[in-house]
């Protein structure tokens, strides 16, 4: 809509080329923004009995709009209202109204200006690289010398450029639109038909406010993209979120802002491949119990740390995650769950099917991005109640209930509410025989008073284990779990872990080796009373 704000009275009087200035129609598709532009236009054109040329396709909020000049086309378009079905089997409404002349039509550049533009463009075109450099086009000396003002943010200017490209260099591979004050990409949306071969696009140092502008050009098979210097870059909390959001629009992207991107199947920093199902004794409940313990320990160690992104390697490519906050809207105490309510996907209340779909996080990148946004936590592993309720050769399904504390660092003292949660994981063994999470469903609510009080209270240590208190929270938890798993006392567990630099897996392996060699003394197995 911004392109239309720049109209000045003189320009409106200018144009007389087109003959009939009247007879323009504006076609509106509500919620058209959710469709792929190419699909939408192809569907409309194939259903419409009269062929037409759409002009100035653009979006206004969720509406998709374009213009046609032909009255018979407009009438035919009226006829296909509610006749086209989308992928969700919804009928697509199409509204037709008369309209003023679309901007790019009533401000078309005169032929002489188009000629000069063609010359300017050929000067800026590198034939060997098939690259067109239009950066700061407004201030091109040739254009200024001929009094041609090309403001690319204006629809008519962008259309003129695209037409020139279409006529002369449709084989374009690289386009530089840096520093042209672009605040929307509606004008660029036709580029997909005009120059489909474009692989490199530079949109840096413009005024693009949201990554959703890229929706309008996502048909391009870009391999390299520059976006830095746009306000949209500041809308992302960190670099990985930014990268993965941009990659969604251009899956083949290998360079962003001049940096090589890692290949799409990212392996996390910490590999969760400690989870190896021991196929020989898979039926044993003890083995499964250990597996689950190890998984939970490892998962929550990472989850409670600064670096939740490492969880990427724990999830399957196509995993699903969703969050529910069951609550009664009249309960005022639950307003402090607002961090979670944003992602709340309670099917009972959520009627908007789009929102429901969006809130089901699918693919491991989306999932980890959502997890990174939740408040920092500290889970109380002692509070965990685990239910293993389904398992097969390749699948493990279990639920964990417990409490966690939200960590808000206020002057080095962590404060924060205690929440209760139930989380169900389905783990499946992947191709390399390590398990990964395929489904993750989480319910969060406020903890009951009793739960809050008993949370994080480590059992009172007997005098012989007073050294436990010099360990960190995580280390204490590791000792407890190691002791449960190995059957040796807390003191010995601590020693074993300490001797192995608190590498749980290594300690477990060392312990197992010593055990088979008969090197563990009897007293190590003495249980604490």
């Amino acid at each position, binding site marked *: 809509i911004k392109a239309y704000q720049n109209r000045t009275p003189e320009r409106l009087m200018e144009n007389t080329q087109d003959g009939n200035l009247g007879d323009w129609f504006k076609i509106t598709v509500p919620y058209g923004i959710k469709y792929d532009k190419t699909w939408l236009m192809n569907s409309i054109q194939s259903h419409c009995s009269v062929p037409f040329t759409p002009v100035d396709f653009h979006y206004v909020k969720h509406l998709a709009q374009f213009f046609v000049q032909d009255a018979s086309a407009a009438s035919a378009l009226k006829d296909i209202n509610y006749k086209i079905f989308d992928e*969700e*089997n*919804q009928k697509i409404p199409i509204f037709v109204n008369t309209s003023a002349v679309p901007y790019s039509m009533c401000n078309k550049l005169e032929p002489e200006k188009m000629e000069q533009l063609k010359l300017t463009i050929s000067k800026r075109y590198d034939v060997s690289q098939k690259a067109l450099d239009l950066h700061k086009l407004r201030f091109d000396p040739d254009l200024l010398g001929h009094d041609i003002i090309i403001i690319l943010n204006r629809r008519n200017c962008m259309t003129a450029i695209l037409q020139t490209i279409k006529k002369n260099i449709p084989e374009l591979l690289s386009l530089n639109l840096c520093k042209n004050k672009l605040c929307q990409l509606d004008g660029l949306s036709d580029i997909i038909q005009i120059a489909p071969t474009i692989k490199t696009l530079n949109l840096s140092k413009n005024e693009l406010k949201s990554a959703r502008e890229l929706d309008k050009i996502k048909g391009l098979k870009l391999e390299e993209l520059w976006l830095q210097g746009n306000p949209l870059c500041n809308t992302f909390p960190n670099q990985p979120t930014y990268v993965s959001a941009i990659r969604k629009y251009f899956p083949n992207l290998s360079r962003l802002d001049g940096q090589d991107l890692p290949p799409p199947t990212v392996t996390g920093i910490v590999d969760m491949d400690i989870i190896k199902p021991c196929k020989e004794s898979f039926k044993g409940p003890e083995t499964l119990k250990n597996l689950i313990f190890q998984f939970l320990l490892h998962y929550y160690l990472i989850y409670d740390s600064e670096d939740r992104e490492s969880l990427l390697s724990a999830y*399957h490519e*196509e995993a*699903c*995650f*969703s969050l*529910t*906050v*069951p*609550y*009664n809207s009249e*309960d005022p105490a639950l307003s402090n769950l607002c961090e979670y309510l944003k992602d709340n*996907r*309670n*099917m*009972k*209340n959520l009627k908007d*099917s789009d929102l*429901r*779909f969006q809130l*089901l996080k699918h693919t491991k990148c989306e999932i980890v991005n959502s997890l990174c946004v939740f408040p920092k936590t500290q889970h109380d592993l002692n509070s965990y*109640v685990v*239910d293993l*309720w*389904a398992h*097969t050769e390749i*699948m493990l*399904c279990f*639920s964990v*209930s417990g409490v966690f504390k939200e960590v808000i660092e206020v002057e080095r003292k962590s404060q924060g509410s205690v929440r*209760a*949660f*139930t989380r*169900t994981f*389905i783990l*499946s063994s992947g191709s390399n025989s390590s398990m990964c999470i*395929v*489904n993750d*469903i989480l*319910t969060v*609510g*406020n*903890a*009951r008073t009793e*739960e809050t009080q008993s949370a994080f209270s480590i059992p009172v240590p007997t005098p012989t284990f007073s050294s436990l208190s010099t360990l960190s929270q995580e280390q204490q938890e590791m000792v407890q779990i190691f002791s449960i798993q190995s059957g040796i006392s807390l003191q010995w567990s601590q020693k074993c872990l300490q001797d192995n630099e608190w590498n749980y897996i290594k300690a477990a392996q060392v312990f197992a080796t010593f055990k088979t060699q008969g090197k563990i003394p009897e007293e190590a197995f003495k249980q604490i009373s």
Partner: protein
Amino acid sequence: MGDKPIWEHIGSRFIQHYYQLFDNDRTQLGTVERTAIQGKAAIVEKLSSLPFQKIQHSITAQDHQPTPDSCILSMAVGQLKADEDPIMGFHQMFLLKNISDAWVCTNDMFRLALHNFR
């Protein structure tokens, strides 16, 4: 399939059906339940022999996810009241599978009064 993805559709209908059956006549749950471990009859027997006469469930929240092997994972959280006992919270998970064109529950996990989700 309407305007909802299939797993939500099946999941919601299942939950509705399940709790309706449960509240009204638990002996009929045989048509719903089946697991690899215990078997239909044992489950229905167990559920029927639970020591209450009347029971009522009220669902506060539910959520559904598709699994990669085309099953549906459904979750229900809510409150129940058995006979004259006080209202308690519960949390239940179901794993639904499509077997010869009908959706059955292959696994079910029920937990009572874990958290105070109202």
